[in-house]
């Protein structure tokens, strides 16, 4: 019986390039492959993606499987599960890594069920058990209140990994490797879903994921008008405004500005959390923030357990004075 060996990364493509998460996964996969003394492969799926193999080599891959077909232009569950099943049966990887993204969240579980193996979602840490050589999959559970470590005896061992949890390698454009083309072999009847439209709702200005300063607002902001004050501060600091879930659910700020377990993952140098209680679900999106500053009237709020600096007080009184002083300091 053939053996499952090697590490494979499902390398997502966005706007004609490897997605940031793909490069992060290749960095993490490279380390694990070296530790196991095995090969790192990438699988790239899409339409017109043949030229992306070199990007994957530069990011650490030894081998790249390309599945290039016009029917794979948009992500559709049936099509992508089918071609991933084919690529996995051909490559027989021991470990398969995917991103915890809109695609990975949909693809990884269904693929795992199809292959009769088990996936672990939203991992923030992966390691090889020194004894069993099996994959140790650490993921936050209960909204981040606890961490769980899982293993499985089944192959391939599938894990999705949280965005920005892993560090990419320095790209090495001199690296090269083997390209394997896999025939998609899809018939239109395999695909039961049609993509009618794609809508971008990204708000103007600096993106949350790229911002070095983020000003976040919580339930205590109380209105869409309140968020204008946060916009003013973010504008001064050349940062972006985000929110915990309640302001998004209340329509004070667009859903795409949600930070947290089911929203965006942000990693700024400075995160100013205003009227945010700091639930684990929200903090799951800011665990990579280097400096958290909290303004909250509740001294018991969880956010103070996560913050470097804090003020216990009413943001409506604190923030205008803070913003005014920041403006003065930046001007002078």
């Amino acid at each position, binding site marked *: 019986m053939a053996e499952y060996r090697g590490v494979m990364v499902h390398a997502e493509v966005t706007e004609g390039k490897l997605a940031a998460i793909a490069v992060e996964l290749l960095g993490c996969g490279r380390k694990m492959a070296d530790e196991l003394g095995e090969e790192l492969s990438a699988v790239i799926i899409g339409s017109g993606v043949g030229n992306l193999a070199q990007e994957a080599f530069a990011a650490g891959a030894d081998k790249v499987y390309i599945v290039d077909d016009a029917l794979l232009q948009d992500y559709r569950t049936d099509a992508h599960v089918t071609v991933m099943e084919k690529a996995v049966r051909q490559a027989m990887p021991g470990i398969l890594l995917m991103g915890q993204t809109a695609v990975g969240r949909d693809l990884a579980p269904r693929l795992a*069920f199809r292959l009769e193996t088990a996936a672990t979602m939203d991992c923030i840490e992966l390691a090889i058990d020194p004894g069993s050589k099996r994959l140790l999959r650490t993921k936050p559970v209960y909204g981040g209140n606890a961490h769980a470590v899982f293993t499985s005896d089944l192959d391939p061992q599938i894990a999705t990994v949280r965005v920005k949890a892993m560090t990419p390698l320095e790209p090495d454009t001199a690296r090269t490797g083997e390209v394997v083309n896999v025939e998609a072999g899809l018939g239109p009847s395999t695909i039961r879903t049609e993509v009618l439209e794609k809508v971008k709702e990204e708000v103007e200005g600096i993106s949350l994921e790229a911002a070095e300063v983020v000003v976040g607002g919580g339930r205590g902001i109380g209105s869409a008008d309140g968020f204008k004050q946060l916009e003013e501060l973010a504008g001064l600091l050349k940062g972006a405004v985000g929110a915990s879930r309640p302001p998004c659910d209340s329509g004070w700020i667009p859903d795409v500005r949600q930070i947290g377990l089911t929203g965006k993952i942000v990693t700024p140098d400075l995160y100013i959390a205003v009227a945010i209680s700091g639930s684990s679900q929200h903090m799951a999106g800011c665990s990579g923030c280097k400096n958290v500053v909290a303004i909250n009237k509740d001294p*018991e709020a969880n956010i103070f357990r996560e913050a470097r600096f*804090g*003020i216990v007080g009413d943001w409506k009184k604190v923030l205008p004075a803070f913003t005014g002083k920041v403006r003065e300091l930046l001007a002078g």
Partner: protein
Amino acid sequence: MNIIVCVKQVIDPEAPPSSFKVEEAGKKVMPPSGVPPVISPFDENAVEAALRIKDAQGGKITVLSMGVNLLREVVKKPLSMGADELVLLEDEAFADGDSWSNARALAMAIKKIGEYDLIFCGRQAADWDDGQVGLGIAEMLGLPSVTLARKIDVADGKVRVERVTADGFEVLETSLPALITVSNELGEARYPTIKGIIAVKKIEPIVWKPADIGLEPAKVGAAGRKVKLEKLYQPVHEGKCELIEGESPEEAGVNLALKLREAKLL
């Protein structure tokens, strides 16, 4: 239109993080005292999605839940919101399952319920935050699936779904029957009505054991797992927040700006 909604009873995710306790040796979460369990919030969004379709074009909503010690006042909540029927998979054997054993039991129960056009689940449960069971049910029943729905419309034997993406949403269409997982962007679930709460007191749920859905106890719950929980622990918080003070909140705000400058963060 027959809709089945899967809901899970979980520890209230809104309970204060300080009340959250793990028993590491037993790899179990201790339910916080005095905080009753709830329906997982995304599952409530799924119930809401079903009710909106029922409001618009009629139909029957069957709620399906699984576990042990299911509190009737918790699992009956979707009925008091307007759902029609409640089926419980309730047995010690169903405890401590993973996404495999849970999806398998729910898929078998759905087969037994028989008639359905749509199956709704929350995008992920608030306890293990995995988001796999819905897709597992779809795969086992051979149905098309759409995840992360924020709007669902049914017309002409098809379902049209707005699916949340990183920078907005996409509009997808698929054939019925289908399985859809629902996200909070759909909008908050309605409150139960007083009339609903009184009416459901008389409704007795249907309760099935593993044998009732044609499964051996070894295929469900902890016995049917494919992943092993090696360790469960609470991450350590460093908790070294420096509180900035002042004679007034305004002065504290000014002092905070000065502090951030001093720390080279401005």
